């Protein structure tokens, strides 16, 4: 009597209405298209990222010129003082 009741309950627990239908896991055709589009878009974006090549050499040269000009302007006053202070090195 008691054992029979228990198996009944177990069977009911295995066949819930929600498990049979599986509406949650199914995708509508529209959402499938958007998912595919996103996947394709991601692939295109990735391939675009890989194909970009940074031209590093010209950038380095430009930076050097800028730094030098700035430095030369900063040092000019000290250079003039040096010419005055050391005629043995810079005088006629």
């Amino acid at each position: 009597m008691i054992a029979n009741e228990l198996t009944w309950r177990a069977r009911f627990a295995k066949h819930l209405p929600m498990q049979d239908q599986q509406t949650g896991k199914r995708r509508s055709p529209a959402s499938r298209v958007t998912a595919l589009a996103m996947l394709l878009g991601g692939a295109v974006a990735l391939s675009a990222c890989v194909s970009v090549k940074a031209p590093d050499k010209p950038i380095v040269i430009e930076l050097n010129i800028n730094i030098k000009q700035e430095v030369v302007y900063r040092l000019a006053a000290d250079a003039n003082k040096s010419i005055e202070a050391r005629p043995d090195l810079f005088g006629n």
Partner: protein
Amino acid sequence: MTGLIERKHNWRSLVLAGAMLSLVLPAAQASAQVASPVLAAARASGEVGEKTDGYLGFPGTPSAEVRRAADELNIKRRAYYAERAAAQNTTVEAYALTMGCQLIAKTKPGEKYQAPDGSWRTRSAEPPLRSNLCPA
């Protein structure tokens, strides 16, 4: 309390005065020296000239004596540039380049100097040809 602070100030000014004196004294000693007469003549005749990089160069083929004197001076210049570059937190090349700008600007008419393209020019009454990097 106030006495302590004043004492601190006195010490500071003493240290400052000492530092300034030690800076001025070597400069005064150096200015007593004169450039070599060999190089003075070579400069006037155009046998040596000022290069853009801050050192003396030869527009033509110099005599052995002039070459030796110029090389010797260039070594002394380099040592001095290294000293000043360290004081100014820069590279020897940057300081030497700045000196080249200023030394070319101070050449006298008739003397030789190097143009930015590397060619040798004779200084006229007009301003010399200098690199765009040079300050006005």
